[in-house]
């Protein structure tokens, strides 16, 4: 038996253990190992190629995207500017609205705006008596009540 590490080491050294390898196995395994190595290389190369191609495709797509984002606004066809004029009939004839029209298109624009207001509101008499005004007001009031 053994008492410590040294004793056990001596015991192991005295054992007659056959560890002689078989030459045929050594040679066959050497061939198999090298063959497995070259197979793993080919496999790795094919994966590397696929990965590289995928990376290249991704880079191209990103580059095209960036290019389009950068160039996009300049190439875009701008829609014709719509003159900013008040649309409600009452708003069409305010001083501010008329001033805006004058700034944008001069007197012609002011005339156009006034014509538009007339078209929307309808033609009115040049002069009106107090009786007519009250009647008109009453008719309008009755119509509102009916509604």
């Amino acid at each position, binding site marked *: *038996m053994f008492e410590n590490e040294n004793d056990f*080491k001596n015991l192991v050294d005295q054992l007659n*253990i056959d560890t002689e390898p078989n030459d045929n196995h050594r040679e066959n395994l050497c061939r198999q190992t090298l063959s497995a190595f070259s197979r793993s290389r080919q496999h790795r190369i094919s994966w590397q190629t696929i990965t590289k191609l995928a990376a290249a495709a991704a880079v191209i797509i990103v580059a095209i995207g960036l290019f389009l984002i950068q160039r996009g606004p300049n190439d875009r066809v701008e829609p014709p500017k719509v003159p900013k004029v008040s649309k409600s009939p009452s708003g069409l004839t305010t001083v501010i609205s008329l001033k805006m029209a004058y700034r944008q298109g001069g007197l012609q624009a002011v005339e156009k705006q006034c014509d538009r207001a007339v078209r929307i509101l309808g033609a009115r008499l040049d002069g009106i008596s107090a009786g007519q005004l009250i009647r008109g007001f009453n008719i309008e009031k009755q119509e509102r009540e009916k509604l």
Partner: protein
Amino acid sequence: MANIERTTDTDDLVLRARADADALGRLYELYYERIFRFCVHRLFSKTIAEDVTSAVFLAVAAKIRDFTGRTEQDFRNWLYAIAANNANAYIRKMSRRNELLQQLTASMTEAADCADEANELDWPTLYMAISRLKPKHQTILTLRFFENLQIQEIAKIINAKESTVRVTLHRILRTLREHLQSVLDGGK
């Protein structure tokens, strides 16, 4: 000086083996016997040792491109780690374990018939006692006493602290003494 040059050459071989089949072939020649011997010590049977050695080198061929070590020492530790894992994986299969034990029992009977002295300790008897240890403990014992590796190297191979290996080794020997006594007493 010559030793330093030789070490450097082998380090270079390890670096080149990731892409060069010749370098891998030379490493194979350098390490085949060691790994085969380790497998015989771990698995008793030479036939089984051949199978496991084959599995080890085929794994090396498949994984060497991902091996990150730079020196011969790193390569040796890596190789022993693969061999230990393969040997343990082999033993873990119960059917194989039974087959192994049958071979062992036959060898023990044969050895007992041939023994000159009744109290002489032979390899089958010692292996029977070793086989009762945990697989990881068997690996440590084999690396230390059959492969003559330093505690530091064993710690790297099994990925443990040196102090842990030292303490474990002490416990392994104590347990092995008991197992050996039991085997010599007739397997009680």
